[in-house]
């Protein structure tokens, strides 16, 4: 299904919002205004945005340690995300989770996850729920190339295919897991080649081309909604920044020329899509700039929202432990 102009512009806005959110998070963490670990998604925005553009608001996702982009793409409120990074009560988890544990069950975000591949079984469970609900719901499960080393990857692909669960396995192959190149941890590097072992389609796509991702995801989503089962979507992308930071970024040992190439305007998923829009007359450079400005204002507002929110009261330490 072709996208409307408004939809295309919204895709661009989401790309920019994710980009600026994570650049800001790095800045805030460097300034020690927020806490804990930050894993920037910068450079991979087209995967989250492309996949979520193929989903309905009622569809569900599971996310990873590098999860800000997935949440924003699925529609999370950046105010509450920011408040969570600041450890405040108005954060999504009331400050209990932080960067690696943002969730919004109300809009189908079943949570970021600090455990590599740990969200995959949970995504399968959400897809099982959708299958039982029988209302055409679909789940998208994001995971990294490094996650393919874990047993949970294998187990969930088998079960999902066996049970024909309405599920998209979205592998974000950014060619590294922490500092380690994918070829140093995998016997063969084409992740889509796992699919035949599970009798499911495996599709490789340029993960920096948001429309290509969206098209591939749409096809997989339709298949899932039809009841034909899961698809392994292998998105080839690249992390433009370091793996993670606490007080300072972890050293980035990747070859500098490779990193530089992936940062080029024609490969960067944000500028690349901007050029696509402007060259096709869908938006002008001025409109694009206006969107960037609006995003920055939204993010300033998010920081203000976060800082205005109080820290949780230590007396509430035991709240939320058990449901009634």
């Amino acid at each position: 299904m072709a996208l409307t102009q408004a939809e295309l512009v919204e895709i661009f806005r989401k790309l920019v919002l994710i980009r600026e959110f994570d650049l800001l998070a790095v800045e805030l963490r460097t300034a020690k205004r927020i806490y804990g670990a930050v894993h920037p998604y910068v450079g991979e925005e087209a995967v989250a945005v492309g996949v979520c553009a193929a989903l309905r608001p009622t569809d569900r996702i599971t996310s990873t340690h590098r999860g800000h982009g997935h949440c924003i793409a699925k529609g999370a409120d950046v105010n509450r995300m920011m408040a969570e990074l600041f450890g405040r009560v108005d954060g999504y988890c009331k400050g209990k989770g932080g960067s690696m544990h943002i969730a919004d069950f109300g809009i189908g975000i079943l949570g970021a996850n600090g455990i590599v591949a740990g969200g995959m079984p949970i995504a399968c469970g959400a897809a099982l729920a959708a299958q039982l609900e029988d209302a055409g719901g679909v789940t998208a499960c994001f995971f990294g190339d490094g996650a393919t080393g874990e047993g949970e990857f294998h187990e969930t692909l088998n079960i999902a295919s066996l049970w024909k669960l309405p599920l998209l396995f979205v592998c974000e192959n950014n060619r590294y897991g922490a500092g380690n190149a994918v070829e140093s941890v995998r016997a063969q590097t084409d992740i889509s080649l796992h699919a035949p072992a599970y009798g499911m389609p495996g599709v490789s796509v340029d993960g920096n081309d948001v429309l290509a991702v969206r098209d591939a995801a749409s096809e997989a989503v339709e298949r899932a909604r039809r009841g034909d089962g899961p698809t392994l979507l292998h998105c080839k992308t690249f992390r433009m920044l370091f793996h993670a930071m606490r007080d300072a970024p972890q050293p980035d040992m990747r070859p500098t020329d490779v990193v530089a190439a992936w940062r080029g305007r024609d490969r960067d998923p944000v500028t690349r899509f901007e050029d696509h829009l402007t060259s096709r007359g869908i938006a002008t450079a001025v409109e694009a700039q206006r969107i960037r400005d609006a995003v920055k204002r939204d993010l300033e507002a998010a920081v203000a929202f976060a800082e205005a929110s109080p820290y949780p009261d230590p007396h509430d330490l035991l709240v939320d432990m058990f449901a009634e």
Partner: protein
Amino acid sequence: MREITFAQALEEALIEEMERDERVITMATQRAPALENKFGDKRVRFTPISEAAFTGIGLGAAGSGFRPVVHWGMVTFSFVAMDQIVNQASKIRYMFGGQADFPVTYRCSTGGGMQVAAQHSQSPYSMFMHLAGLKILLPSMPADAKGLLKSAIRDNNPVVFFECSRLASTTGPVPDGEHTVPIGVADVKRAGRDVTIVGLAYYVREALAVADTLTTEGISVEVLDPRTLVPMDAAAIRASVRKTGRLVVVDEAPATCSAASEIVALVTEDPETFRALRAPVQRVCAAPVPVPFSPPLEQAALPDRARITAAVRRVLEDARRPDPLAR
């Protein structure tokens, strides 16, 4: 009251809860033909041997509106799924600020005494108790088994339900009709005066047998069954120990960092109970070894009536401390 087996009581509980609420679904690596016929293979899911996956599937489905009852088989096989238990199930609600409930029940069989050696004779309750975020149940009698499993399935939190293998074929009275047992409430299986035995699962029955025998010597034993391990009914245990002044805990897990250790700590850190204690507490637990296969070794490794009796005598003979209440 009718008498049925522990296993039948559990099956009744599951069927009743599945009839009561169609969001209850089951998953297991073993087929359950009777359940499948009754409720269909959509709700009664037979799974590949992929415990990590289906443990997380249960959690994900619970967070999406269903009430899965997941059977790991033996507790042994849960260790393959430990990431989903430790890092996900026990933390997911609190970590996400309480925004969703996860009503999932994990069942598994436990315990030794069946000559199936180390890997298949485990009782690692305490490893799950240590995790803040799981409710943990361990019934000893068919009626408790039924009533607690029903409560577990209705509970809106992840619950781990341990089923002692040696109890499966034991029988006991179970009320007809609706019968639930509240989570978190211990049960005095036999009232007594001189010493409290806290027994777990199979060892509640063994403690009762020891109590019977000691009665002939004029020794009055109180037998208390926690039934729930988390939240532990510390008040009931402490009240019993304050009454008897003596405590023996019997459990078939090895002693180190066990449920028995925890019960000892709960008793001795409470000032009033501590002051009422007239003798050192005794843990009667398994030897610190993987449960061996050969019957004479296995018997030596696990607690038995002789060792329970000896422990009772030790706490009674420790007469060097006067009864602080001069009873």
